[in-house]
């Protein structure tokens, strides 16, 4: 068996124990499996191995196995993570690996949750509305420095791990009042686009519940694309809401500017 410590690359095959949550909306429990782990395997490989060899009816969602489709989101040892991007040699080798579905969404079966709420939220956000073209051929002139901020947000793969870890959704169940970090990032990408002319600030305050975010930065910590969600998207949007609704001086300026 391997003796490589957690966080280093193992070169040997070893047996590892898993506790995988099995069940549906009516309830469920953790079921134990043992898996032969070979070097280079990720958690999703182990789940596939369990599926192939021990539990053919184990449900899990996956697609690209390269951290780009955002399908295999789950909680590994209690941390929201992509199963395909969690290498086995980064987990404590002597401990049972716990794999369970995301907690902020309704369960369908085993590791699969119903994330359709997110798609409904996205439909409500006002779409991109560009200004009139800058050039006669119907194109716009933009500079890299102007699109840099939005480019970071466009890296999002919609894995919804940020939604899962956000305590406003996970613990307080404010799905009806709060759009969650994913859609604050989406809104920020639109709002900070210099070509866009739409105003979403009132929606952010009155409908999207941006005030519910209390800046715990959990979303930033779990983002597999390393988007600085809180500092670069949510807080700048909060400040734009302050400009519009809470700061008497900026309100006064706006009144005179018209």
């Amino acid at each position: 068996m391997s003796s490589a410590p957690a966080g280093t690359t193992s070169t040997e095959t070893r047996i590892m124990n898993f506790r995988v949550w099995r069940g549906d909306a009516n309830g469920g429990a953790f079921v134990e499996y043992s898996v032969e782990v070979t070097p280079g395997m990720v958690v999703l490989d182990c789940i596939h191995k369990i599926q192939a060899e021990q539990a053919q009816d184990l449900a899990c969602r996956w697609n690209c196995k390269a951290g780009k489709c955002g399908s295999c989101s789950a909680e590994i040892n209690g941390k929201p993570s992509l199963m395909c991007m969690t290498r086995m040699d980064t987990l404590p080798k002597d401990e049972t690996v716990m794999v369970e579905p995301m907690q902020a969404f309704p369960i369908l079966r085993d590791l699969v949750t119903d994330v359709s709420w997110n798609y409904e939220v996205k439909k409500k956000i006002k779409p991109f509305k560009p200004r009139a073209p800058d050039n006669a051929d119907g194109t716009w002139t933009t500079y890299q420095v102007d699109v840099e901020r939005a480019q970071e947000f466009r890296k999002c793969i919609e894995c919804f791990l940020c939604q899962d870890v956000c305590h406003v959704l996970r613990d307080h169940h404010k799905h009806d009042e709060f759009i969650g970090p994913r859609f604050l990032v989406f809104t920020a990408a639109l709002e900070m686009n210099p070509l866009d002319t739409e105003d979403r600030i009132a929606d952010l305050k009155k409908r999207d519940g941006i005030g519910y975010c209390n800046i715990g930065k959990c979303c930033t910590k779990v983002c597999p694309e390393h988007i600085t969600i809180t500092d670069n998207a949510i807080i700048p949007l909060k400040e734009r809401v302050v400009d519009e609704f809470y700061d008497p001086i900026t309100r006064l300026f706006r009144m005179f500017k018209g």
Partner: protein
Amino acid sequence: MTKISLPQARGFLQTNRKDLWWLQPLVVLLGFGAFIVYSTWAALQGSHYFIGGPSDPGAQQLLSPFYSPVVWDAANLKSGHAWFEGLPAWWPAWMIFSPALLILPFPGLFRFTCYYYRGAYYKAFWGDPVSCAVGEPKFRGDNYRGEEKFPLIFQNVHRYALYIAIVFIFLLAFDAWTSLWNVDSTGAKHFGVSVGSLVLTMNVVLLGGYTFGCHCWRHLVGGKHDCMSCSKMRQNAYSRVSWLNARHMLFAWMSLFWVGFTDVYVRLCSMGVWTDYRIF
């Protein structure tokens, strides 16, 4: 929108995380807690907040940042920094007067409403959440108000606290400059640098790094605009403030520690426990 039912309800502190998730909130609790206790105690003392000046000739003029600016000196003390003589007439007679009581609420408000500190103390002091993916106290449940409603909607005053904090940076920079001078018994001023001068200078550098890395400041110098290429000055200011902002937590902790240490240094020198050694 349809109400969704969730799979598993977590109890308080319940989690399947296997790492030391409790360590960071504990360190924050102890760090902030220690600072709050010490600064409150130091502010209530109303003594040992300066060395040098007319009542202490020959020593470099050091003033504790907890007491700067000195609007009125404490009773029977003459720091040489006070703006007005005597005690404020409107101060209630039943209340202890200490110059720091007029000062600390302002930097206190800046830190209390700071975006970094908010996230940190919500976790450490009232478990909202205790840590990421760790169960919260059940009493909050669906009644969670966040910063959407009273009382925490008040956090939106942060930019006004920033404006005051910027004034304090200039005042503390003046104190660092003043610390490079000592007054002899004839009242003449002489240039010199002591360990205390360096302590006060480092204090204003760290506080400046923290203040000018503020999220509000980042917004005000350029972040609120979509077009960065429209102004070279805006672009430069935004990129420099963004550099500081990415290190906001680091500067928040370093400046918190150092401002406390600066008070300790001045206090112990004033009490005669430490000597403020002259470098030249």
